[in-house]
């Protein structure tokens, strides 16, 4: 299977991720959308790396996976904290700041 197939899969995942972050209001969904975007990027990296013969793409993918984990941990901690303060996890709901 050539490069193109992988790129198309990745593009679809990117689209899903973007839609998930803008169209769903629950913060958990937004985080899942972000994970989809990152996965799409990883798929790109590994596919390019496979077809251009450099290892750099794979190394980047490793780092990106680790960073995704770190980011998710911090994001969920913040979500839990906000949930404790507001009893809501829709980002539109806490509205102190928009007055």
């Amino acid at each position, binding site marked *: 299977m050539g490069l193109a197939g992988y*790129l198309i899969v990745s593009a679809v995942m990117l689209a899903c991720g973007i839609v998930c972050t803008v169209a769903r209001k629950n913060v958990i969904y937004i985080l899942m959308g*972000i994970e989809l*975007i990152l996965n799409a*990027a990883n798929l790109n990296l590994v596919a390019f790396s496979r077809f251009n013969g450099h290892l750099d793409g794979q190394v*980047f993918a490793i780092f990106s996976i680790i960073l995704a984990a*770190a*980011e998710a941990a*911090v994001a969920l901690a913040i979500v839990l904290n*906000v949930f404790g*303060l507001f009893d809501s996890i829709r980002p539109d709901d806490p509205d102190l700041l928009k007055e």
Partner: protein
Amino acid sequence: MPDITNPFWIRPELCLTAFACAALLVDLLFRESVLVGAFSLMGLLATGYFLLQQYGQTPPPGHVLGCVAVDRFATLFKLFAVGSLIFVVLFTLLGKRTRREGFSEFYFILLCAGLGAFFLASTYHLLMMFLGLELLSISSYVLTGYYKGNRRSGEAALKYVIFGAVASGVMLYGFTLIYGLTGSLDLLEISEKQLLRAQFEAGPSGYVPISIAVAMCFAGFAYKISIAPFHFWTPDVYEGAPTPVTTFLAVASKGSGFAAMLRFLSAGFLVDPNLPGNEAMMGYGVKIGHLVALLAAVTMTLGNLAALQQTNLKRMLAYSSIAHAGYILMGVATMNDEGFKSVLFYLVAYYFMNLGAFGAVIYFANTTSGEEIDDLRGLGWRAPVVGVTFIIFLVALVGLPPTSGFVGKYNLFVAAIRNGYQWLAVVAGLNTAISLFYYFRIAKAMYLRDPDEGRFKTVTPSPMLAGLLVLLAFGTLWFGIGPGVAQLQDYAAVSQTLTTR
């Protein structure tokens, strides 16, 4: 081939890391927040010392230790980050709300954020750039939510993390496209081997994906420096975050974001007739410049119009910082080292005036526990040092002589006009006129109202804070009429290291 075993060039980073980790241990031993703060300050000063040592030296070309570039451009921005961190730490120490709990975490994460800013500014490698950005961002999310019992702080952190994660994800995707198009993750290599040019010559099948990739990468940078349409988080986060953290976000974080953006753009899109390359590629750089100019115009206009309606001081400064990002983009839009030079100078000017403005805000928060502009009524009479220095910062933010804001803005205007962006200069001129109204609302509240009108009793600032403000005001004037203006020449050399290879 640089001597990669020579630790001289990585010493500031090592120093900062060591002090950051040690800050956690100091807390275990002594449990005294002032001590941890002082310890971090010591670390920052040591780092700054190492950086100053580097600044005078001729750096090795290319990379040190694989991914790290230690050119003067990087050192300048590292100094910028360390300098602002020193003030952030001092502001934190002088601020009212120092908590019993979690201060060592605060300083640790603050120093790590500085480390992220360091690496973000000092790399040509996309992986390293992403890593630096993430370190800076993750630290900033935590710092924003530092008042975890406070709803505003929590909400600000939530907004920040969501916007940030989406933007950095999109940027990562853009990076992967660049990797796919060039086969390299190293911007230096991309630029030197003109890898993008090969793509470009293939016609639309080349430049359409390049455009998409660049646009996606811009999402990340734009979010970091709060350019439209990625600026929505700025006012909320600036208002909700603890004020010293806001200072950090407005100054150091934004500065490094610009550094990364300039490096990214210098990799293949420069409009420099002296560079080897074909005309089409240069034409493409010009087009990117047009796009940046458009973003600049939109950003500054949105920022200024929104700032007009604000009553909260921190929110107003947030919108003002958006507007300033727009002004700075004027220099970026030129896509040559003349513009980049003016960007560097403006950032230095911006450093002094914004740190000063936030320092004054911290004083108000300490004494009046209010952040509304109306709370400032008559304050200039009761706290003359803060009042007068604040006026100087405001004058600089408007861009009037004899301050650094004027010289900085002047050079941005000249760069824009000289490179065919007359319309942008006109837009920026109009925006400057608009900005006058809201900046002077502060001046009006402080001086034109009766001293007795204010709701709060004010006290004289601590001599330390007053000293800091005077120092920053001095810097604002130094780079406005003093010999500091000559730095412009120096920055021209610095930006040339970035653009001529």
